[in-house]
């Protein structure tokens, strides 16, 4: 077992003929993911790395029975790609695309809330169930199967931590990058809940950053509901207040969302705090 995806997950790639879509399709196939199809309007009938391309998600789902989709299309088109996936019956949608407008995401978020849909992202590295499936852009070699659940707002910081765990012999159940945008499909609490319920997961790593209050909410959830040990790292202790740091999740909002606040809240929930992401292995040992 693992969460969200495993070796039975049938994946389609939206934007498969693009530069990133094509490159990562190959990487996902090499990792062992069941990539059953791709979608690029107007290119139906072509093949990419042995994967058939369809014109619409609907036709791809009908032909392949896909139950998951990954989105690599450009930001102005990503919201429609998400709507299209959902309307075609996809239950797990992972949106890698960076730079989606927040007003668009609010509409997507509202639309999805009605259905039984799981959206990861956007602006995220996707997820990796070591040894089973990779739906995203995480380098596959950094992970190995095991019992640590990893959840993170930040993409590359996730790689650091997963790599450090693997180097120390600690394998992972599933690694999930939820993205740091203001509005995202799946938040810390959703994933923590899944890890809490997943028999394979024994301990959890959480990586947050300054801005917003998602880590505070996570701390409250952990205190109230988690029986499994959690260790955490919060990026941005040295970031000056009020300065935009790359993505919107990293705006320090007047007196709220500082690293100190978040660390205090997590500590109060019994979470062990790492000062350095390479410290996780010793905290979890």
């Amino acid at each position: 077992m693992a969460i969200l995806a495993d070796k039975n997950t049938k994946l389609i790639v939206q934007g498969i003929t693009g530069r990133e879509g094509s490159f990562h399709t190959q990487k996902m196939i090499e990792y062992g993911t069941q990539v059953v199809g791709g979608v690029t309007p107007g290119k139906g009938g072509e093949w990419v790395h042995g994967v058939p391309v369809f014109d619409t998600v609907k036709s791809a789902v009908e032909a392949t029975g896909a139950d998951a989709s990954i989105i690599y299309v450009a930001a102005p088109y990503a919201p429609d790609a998400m709507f299209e996936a959902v309307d075609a019956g996809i239950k797990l949608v992972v949106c890698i695309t960076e730079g989606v407008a927040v007003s668009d995401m609010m509409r997507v978020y509202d639309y999805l809330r009605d259905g039984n849909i799981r959206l990861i992202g956007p602006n995220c590295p996707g997820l990796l169930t070591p040894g089973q499936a990779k739906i995203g852009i995480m380098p596959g070699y950094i992970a190995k199967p095991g019992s640590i659940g990893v959840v993170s707002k930040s993409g590359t910081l996730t790689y650091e931590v997963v790599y450090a765990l693997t180097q120390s012999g600690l394998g992972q159940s599933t690694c999930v990058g939820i993205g740091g945008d203001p509005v995202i499909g799946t938040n810390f609490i959703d994933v923590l809940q899944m890890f809490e319920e997943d028999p394979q997961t024994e301990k959890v790593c959480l990586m947050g950053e300054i801005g917003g209050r998602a880590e505070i909410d996570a701390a409250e959830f952990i205190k109230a509901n988690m029986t499994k040990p959690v260790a955490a790292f919060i990026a941005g202790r040295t970031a000056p207040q009020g300065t935009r740091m790359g993505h919107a999740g990293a705006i320090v909002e007047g007196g709220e969302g500082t690293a100190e606040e978040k660390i205090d809240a997590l500590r109060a929930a019994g979470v062990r705090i790492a000062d350095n992401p390479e410290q996780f292995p010793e905290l979890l040992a």
Partner: protein
Amino acid sequence: MNLHEYQAKEQFAKYGVPVQTGRVANTAEAAYNIAREMAVPVVVKAQVLVGGRGKAGGIKLAQTPEEAREKASAILGMSIKGHIVHKVLVVPAANIAKEIYLSVTNDRAAGKPLLMASAEGGVEIEIVARDNPTAIIKQHIDPFLGLREYQARNVAAAMGLSREHWRAFAKIAMNLYASFVGSDAVLAEINPLVVTDANELLALDGKMIIDDNALFRQQALEAQRDVSDDPPEVIHARDAGLSYVKLDGNIGCMVNGAGLAMTTMDMTKLYGGEGYGPANFLDIGGGAQADKVAMALRIILNDPQVKSVLFNIFGGITRGDEVARGILQALGEVPTNVPLIVRLNGTNAEEGRRIIEAANLPNVRYASTLTQAAQLAVQAAKGEL
């Protein structure tokens, strides 16, 4: 992207929000002429993209045109939190009976826009939030339905606004929301929205921040961007699609991903201690190609405070070979003796390292972990390497 007060007000006015119009002056003489034409006492307001103008002396009342010239002369060229004032807005002084706070922003946790209002306007809303949080009335907005009049009415009632002003207030709130949506803003704020002594509602100030991710469909707003206040490296970084923030330290950082960039900064401080820390935040973003990496490196090396540079690239969508080519490209154009600590990992990291190694650069050192990289960068900055 931040708008100036006068730009935000123009945008509000376009959507029917009654704003106190004024005119922009670049010189004290122009301010004098505007004040003379207005023929009433005026307020001279610094136009800078930063808060706290009033406290810093950037907003002054002038009773006469001569006084307006004098105040404008004092304000133009002054520095407010590091921002030089290049323009002032001259507006007629208003007779204020009551000050209200009104804004639309996004509640990320709820995934919805949020209308916030308070009868305690005219002061910083953060102070109200801290001292008297119940004075701030919040109303979520359905992104599909938009702000409804009854919601604005509920807010007006909750903030204790006199009933005679409800209709005008609701209209302003709905129009402010329309400007927020139509401009792809992440913040549209009026502080203060005043009730004048003529019993009319009027926006005396305006603030607007546009979602950078939506600028592709807000070209008219993007064209209004004021870069006069931005240092060249910020302009170059933005043009190249890099996220760059200058900091006070001496260790240049080039990283892919905002979270890892902040982490890398934190590590340089953790191992650097007093006097050593990050010279900048720089996120090359996902999937950066050689040209972009080269521009990033040129921007970092252009900072005379930088004593060492830490490259921390953990490739996912970004590929190590592309980064390596970008580093070599930049060093070919701008040779440097500054120590470079290179840590590549993830997608195509091996190829990247091979490419750099093949160039045989004397000032390059490699690290395999982030900890080691940060430690090396600190040592290099201290001249201990």
